[in-house]
C-alpha cells in the first residue's frame, strides 16, 4: 500500500485566502460606509456653519433696525412722509376750490361803468339786477331803434359772453325791454 502523506497546508492556505478575501471585502464596505458618513457629516457641518452665519447676520440687522436711534429716525421719516401727503391732500382740495372761484364771474364797477358808458342817449336804465353770472337790465328807450342800438354797442365791445334780448313793448311813450348780459368767466 502506497503511503500517502497528508498535506494540510494547501488546504489551510486556501481557507485562509478565502477568509482574508472576505475580511478585506468587509473592511472595504466599512471604509466606504465610514467615508460616506464623513462626507455627509462634512456636508451637514457646512450647512450648520452657513446657518449659524445667517443667524448672526439676521441678529446684526435686527439689532440695527431695532436700535432706538434708528427707530426714532425712521419714525421721523415716516411722520414727515405722512405730513407731506396730508399737506398735498389739503393743497389739492384748496386748489380745486380756487379753480372754481377764479372762473366765477365778478360783478364790479367796471361792468357797470361799461353798461353806463355804452348806453345811447335815448335809453334809460330803470333797474340793474345781477344774478350769478348775468346782468339783467330793465331799460326804456325813447325810439324804436334804441334797444337794438344799445345791444349792438354792447356786443361790439366783446367784453361780455353774450347779450340777449327777446323783444320790447311800447308803453307810455317808451319802448321797454330787458337785456340779459352774460358775463365772461375769470374777469
Amino acid at each position: 500500500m502506497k503511503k500517502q502523506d497528508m498535506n494540510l497546508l494547501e488546504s489551510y492556505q486556501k481557507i485562509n485566502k478565502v477568509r482574508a478575501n472576505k475580511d478585506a471585502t468587509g473592511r472595504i464596505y466599512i471604509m466606504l460606509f465610514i467615508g460616506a458618513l464623513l462626507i455627509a457629516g462634512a456636508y451637514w457641518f457646512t450647512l450648520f456653519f452657513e446657518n449659524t452665519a445667517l443667524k448672526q447676520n439676521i441678529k446684526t440687522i435686527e439689532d440695527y433696525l431695532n436700535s432706538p436711534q434708528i427707530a426714532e429716525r425712521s419714525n421721523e421719516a415716516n411722520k414727515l412722509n405722512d405730513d407731506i401727503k396730508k399737506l398735498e391732500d389739503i393743497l389739492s382740495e384748496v386748489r380745486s376750490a380756487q379753480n372754481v372761484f377764479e372762473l366765477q364771474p365778478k360783478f364790479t364797477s367796471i361792468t357797470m361803468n361799461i353798461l353806463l358808458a355804452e348806453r345811447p342817449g335815448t335809453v334809460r336804465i330803470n333797474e340793474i339786477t345781477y344774478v350769478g353770472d348775468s346782468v339783467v337790465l330793465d331799460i326804456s328807450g325813447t325810439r324804436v331803434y334804441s334797444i337794438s342800438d344799445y345791444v349792438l354797442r354792447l356786443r361790439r365791445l366783446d367784453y361780455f359772453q353774450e347779450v340777449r334780448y327777446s323783444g320790447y313793448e311800447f308803453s307810455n311813450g317808451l319802448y321797454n325791454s330787458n337785456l340779459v348780459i352774460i358775463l365772461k368767466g375769470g374777469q
Partner: protein
Amino acid sequence: MSSLSKREVFLLFLMAVIVTSSLFVAFLINPINEELNVNRERLNQLEFQKQQTEVNLSVIPALRTRKATRLTETETAIQAIADPLHASEFERWMLPVLTEYNARVTNVDLSDTTIATPELLFTQVSSEVYRLLELIQDYNDINVEPLQPLPESTTQMLFAQYSYQFVSSFENFIKIVDEVKEWNTTYFISNANYDFATGEGTITISVYGVQKITPSEVLGIYLEDFGKHPDEIKGPSVPAGTK
C-alpha cells in the same frame, strides 16, 4: 461573518447605507435645510428693510425741506380763502363799508352757516353748430376749438349768504360793490340789484370760509366800539385794508 456570502454582505452594506442615509437626511439635513431657507428668506427681507430704512433715513433732510415747502404752499393757498366768520363778525366787515358810503340799511338777511361745495355760477355760451356751418368752416380752414369743461370742486367749505338791502345813490352802490370785491377773498356778490326809481339797492354776498392750518385771529374787522356804552360809540369806519 463567515456564514454570510458576499452577496449577503453587499446587501447588508447597501441596506445599512440606505437606512443611515435616510435617517441622516430626515433628521439632520432636511431640518437644517428648512431652517436655512427660512433664515435666507428672513435675511433677504431684513436686508431689504435695512436698505429701505437707510434710504428713508438718508432723505430726512430732503423730506424736511419738502414738508416746509408744501406747508408754505398750502398755507399761502388756504390763506386766499376766508376764515370762518360768524355773521356778527361779518357784519363788522360789511357795516363800516355801508356807513362809509352813506347807505341806509333797510333790511338784512343773514343765513345760517352750512357746509357746501363751491358752486360755479357761470354759463358757458356755445355758438350754434350745424352741418352747413361745419362744411363752410372746413372749407375756410377755420378751426373751432371745443369748449373746455368747467372746473368742478368737491371741496367742502363753510358757506353762508348775507343779504343787505339799503338806500343809496347809484354811485355809492357801485362803490360798495367794489369794496366787497377788493376784499379779495372768498366773499362773492352772488346777487345784486339797484332800482334807479327808488334808489334802493340789494346785494347778496356768498361767503365761503375754511379753518386754517395755523389758527389765526380774524383781522380787519371793526371792533372799536365793541362792548361800549351807546353814548361812547363813535361809529365804524372802513376797516384797514378794505379801501
